[in-house]
């Protein structure tokens, strides 16, 4: 297997010292977390690591030594080798770099000092069993077949060349280029990995029943969980000095801390209010049937309960566990704030030079106008609309019926016209709870104001449905068929004479009356559709405000790595060093497989799903 060393970029130029990190079991790869510089007292180091381990729950250890000799400082091979005896390890890494050289040199000493201890080749040569797809059973993946075939094509060059333990990357490359390396350096940006909620750290230990998470995931967890390690800094004076991402400036800011402190009592307050509110809601009266039904229909109530739910989640005392939860909370918070802000804007517009009165004064005439339009429509229908042949009698009946409704409606409007302004005024106040409230209130009002249209629609639809049903069954009779309920199919059946006669009579009548009802149904459905569309738009906007992942958007734009999803590798030459020490020569050097490592943000829709 190949040894992979995940090396923090920030330690590229750290002074020589000890590599603190973790061996990831199973994948044989090492994560370097920090470098502890000389001079140190091994006892303290051990003790320090012990306590770090206790705090973070990551089995930290001293991986090996890191040497970046300053000019004039001579290599300390023997000394480093001796260190391995002080910190007993399964394997002991010795990573070193010469100033100006862009490559790394990595030696691996096994426990027994034999540097040539062969990486016992763990690859068993298994005989390949040919999976025979038989005619009977489904041969779903023919890729297997393909694969086999292709492997015939490729000629056999799969010999393992002698595993060489030691690997001086660059030099070896220059000397025997074709020989394969056994060490991969993966440079990662510790800060970003640290801060990215790439992987829900399932609070503490990963539950054992799921299989151990994949390698990268483990690496990320290690880095993310070994936070306490990063408190000790190169600059503060202590027995130990170390290098890691925080030596490049802290991430946390004072304000965030303060906010965190302040939010606690606020949460308590909110939760108390919520408890009161829920107590009110649970009073017996509200759980009576009509009220509950009403509240389930009124979008204001729905919105209210929705908000309550939000606030409850927000004000829950315990901190967010896991990435998704955190995202959800913050999204809710941001959307809530935005909502309230918009609501306040609306209020400030409403109550300036009383727009409310203007609204009220326009509202009643509007309703009247609508009613008049409807009346005209009905008159038109009662004539010969669009030259359609309608049955006059039925037409008259239906028309009168609906006209009477409209009449009722208008009187109702006029009855409540004086109060409309007041209603609007108080309704406007609801906007201070947020724009969504105002909108849902508006939609409710619309629903109430267009109740007659709803009634028309219901009557028309019911009539039409009955008629269609009757016609279909009579048409079956007309053809001498009948619907067999048991077998769920149409059987042929011989009717009696009188059945046939009456059936045909009814069929004829219904058929001739169909156009009339169909027309009424059509017209009122269209009307209803208009209303529904309007309400739909309102609800859409409300839902948009409620559940638009603004926070996620913001993060995606400014701190994209916080939502890190899939990691993105790309090969770099050692231009980092080239820039800094301006070596023209190194530009022409062959690239070695140093991989720097940064994160790529995930698609937005994932956040939307989260909510």
């Amino acid at each position, binding site marked *: 297997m190949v040894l992979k060393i995940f090396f923090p970029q920030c330690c590229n130029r750290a002074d020589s010292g000890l590599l603190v990190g973790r061996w990831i079991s199973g994948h044989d790869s090492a994560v370097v977390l920090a470098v502890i510089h000389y001079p140190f007292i091994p006892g303290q180091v051990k003790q320090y690591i012990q306590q770090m381990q206790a705090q973070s729950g990551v089995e930290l250890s001293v991986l090996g030594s890191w040497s970046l000799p300053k000019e004039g400082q001579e290599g300390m091979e023997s000394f480093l080798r001796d260190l391995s005896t002080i910190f007993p390890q399964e394997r002991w890494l010795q990573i070193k770099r010469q100033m100006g050289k862009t490559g790394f040199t990595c030696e691996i000493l096994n426990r027994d000092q034999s540097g040539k201890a062969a990486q016992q080749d763990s*690859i*068993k*040569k*298994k*005989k*390949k*069993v*040919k999976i*025979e*797809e*038989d*005619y*009977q059973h*489904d*041969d779903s993946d*023919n890729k297997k*077949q*393909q*694969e*086999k*075939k292709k*492997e*015939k*094509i*490729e*000629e*056999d060059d*799969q010999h393992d060349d002698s595993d060489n333990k030691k690997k001086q990357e660059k030099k070896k490359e220059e000397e025997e280029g074709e020989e394969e390396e056994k060490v991969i350096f993966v440079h990662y940006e510790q800060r970003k990995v640290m801060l990215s909620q790439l992987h829900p750290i399932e609070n503490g230990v990963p539950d054992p029943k799921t299989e151990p998470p994949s390698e990268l995931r483990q690496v990320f967890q290690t880095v993310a969980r070994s936070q306490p390690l990063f408190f000790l800094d190169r600059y503060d004076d202590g027995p130990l000095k170390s290098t890691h991402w925080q030596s490049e400036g802290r991430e946390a800011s004072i304000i965030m801390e303060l906010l965190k402190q302040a939010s606690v009592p606020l949460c308590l307050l909110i939760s108390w209010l919520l408890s009161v509110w829920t107590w009110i809601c649970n009073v017996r009266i509200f759980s009576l049937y009509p009220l509950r039904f009403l509240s389930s229909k009124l979008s204001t109530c729905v919105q209210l309960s929705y908000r309550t739910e939000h606030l409850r989640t927000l004000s829950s005392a315990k901190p967010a566990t896991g990435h998704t939860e955190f995202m959800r909370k913050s999204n809710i918070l941001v959307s809530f704030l935005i909502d309230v802000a918009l609501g306040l804007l609306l209020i400030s517009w409403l109550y300036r030079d009383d727009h409310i009165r203007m609204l009220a004064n326009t509202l009643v005439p509007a309703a009247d106008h609508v009613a008049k339009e409807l009346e005209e429509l009905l008159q038109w229908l009662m004539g010969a609309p669009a030259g359609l042949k309608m049955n006059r009698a039925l037409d008259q009946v239906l028309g009168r019926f609906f006209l009477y409704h409209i009449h009722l409606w208008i009187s109702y409007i006029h009855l409540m016209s004086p109060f409309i302004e007041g209603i609007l005024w108080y309704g406007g106040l609801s906007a201070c709870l947020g724009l969504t409230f105002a909108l849902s209130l508006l939609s409710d009002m619309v629903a109430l104001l267009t109740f007659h249209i709803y009634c028309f629609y219901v009557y028309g639809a019911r009539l039409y449905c009955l008629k269609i049903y009757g016609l279909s069954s009579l048409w079956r009779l007309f053809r001498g068929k009948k619907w067999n309920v048991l077998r769920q199919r149409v059987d042929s059946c011989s009717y009696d004479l009188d059945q046939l006669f009456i059936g045909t009579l009814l069929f004829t009548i219904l058929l001739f009356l169909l156009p009339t009802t169909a027309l009424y149904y059509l017209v009122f459905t269209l009307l209803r559709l208009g209303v529904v569309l309007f309400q739909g738009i309102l609800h859409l906007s409300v839902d948009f405000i409620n559940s638009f992942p603004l926070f996620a958007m913001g993060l995606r734009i400014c701190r994209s790595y916080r939502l890190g999803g899939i990691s993105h590798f790309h090969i770099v030459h050692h231009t980092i060093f080239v820039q800094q020490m301006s070596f023209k020569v190194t530009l022409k050097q062959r690239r070695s497989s140093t991989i720097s490592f940064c994160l790529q943000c995930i698609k937005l829709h994932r956040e939307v799903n989260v909510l």
Partner: protein
Amino acid sequence: MGQRRRSAVKAPSSPSVSAAGEVARVPHKKHKICMVSDFFYPNMGGVESHIYQLSQCLIEKGHKVVIATHAYGRRKGVRYLTNGLKVYYLPLQVMYNQSTSTTVFHSLPLLRCVFVREGITVVHAHSSFSAMAHDALFHAKTMGLNTVFTDHSLFGFADVSSVLTNKLLTVSLCDTNHIVCVSYTSKENTVLRAALNPEIVSVIPNAVDPTDFTPDPSQRQDDTITIVVISRLVYRKGTDLLGGIIPELCLKHPDLHFLIGGEGPKRIVLEEVREKYQLHDRVRLLGALEHKDVRGVLVQGHIFLNTSLTEAFCMAIVEGASCGLQVVSTRVGGIPEVLPDDLITLCEPTVRSLCAGLETVIAKQRSGSVPSPASIHAKVRNLYTWRNVAERTEKVYDRVAGEEVLPLDRRLQRLRTHCGPVAGSIFALFAVMDFLFVLLLQWLVPDRFMDMAVDATGPQGLWRQEKSRKDSAIN
């Protein structure tokens, strides 16, 4: 990474050598055959298994065989079956029970792609019910390939629909090089329908795999007599006759049991009979059977009953006989040719005659004067084998491969003269359009831009090499 290793182990030493070995082993020429039919696995039936078994035997003989059929549900694209039998499930619209709709042209691009990239030399279409097969014949002629057609079914001349279908068959077979029928009756029928020269029509019967259908008397209950019926429950298979037979016999013989395997629209008839005469314990409807389960059902019975109203070549009775059952069948179509008279009792397709036949067989069964299942199996086992079928089909291919394909003008003439003035000229027009379409396609996607497919079977077949290598490894 296990399979990496395995690949390393199994990588071929060098293809050329083994290919040479192939050539040395099988002397005479190999064909690259493309079987085209709408009916193939996962669909189940006589045609399907015919195509499959035939291809397997041809592969054994060192030919290259690919199969083109239409997509079945999620089963689209290219699949491999046993011994690297490659199946193209082309996404063509299915119209009526698994037969694709044909607008003569729309299947051309894909079929052309298959023919070209597989380097096909002979196109073998199956079943006159399959529109895809007819299209393939048409396009193959346009692309200058030799064609063979196997007809699995019989047709009447009475009604209008059959008149139309016969006309179509005439057109589509008029420049097919050779036609294969499964029985002499079927040959006569086909020759009459398609107005063919009887000498380009060969009779090659179907076959059954005798090893799949071995008798097992221990499965029978000896205190009762069981009649097994295995067929799709449709009108053509005479399910109504069966519905007439069951009550009569069951009332006469209290120890008679019926074991009916198969599914279909006429199942309701049998269920009604069962309800009406209270025969739930004696008439068992097993529903649709997997091909591998058939033997298990057959061996439970003493008598195999086939009530088909028309059959080209009834495989079911051969299977029944091969399992050592007494076969009673209607005398229709090619059935009289299939089994010698000592193995089968033929009756007229009426309830009365069938009942009489069954009565005699039951009587014989009771008196124990029937030959033992093993002896029947011994007689049947060598009658029809797929190897034999494959050899005879190979002859047909050898003969066809020699023939030259008519150029367009002669083809048009032939169509005009052979299929009458109206249909002839219409289809001549089609042929011209097809030709132009092929030219267009060759301009759009020239043959040189198509990757030749990697042979799994055939002379340089990789699977064959792999197998031979395995054998060598074993020895």
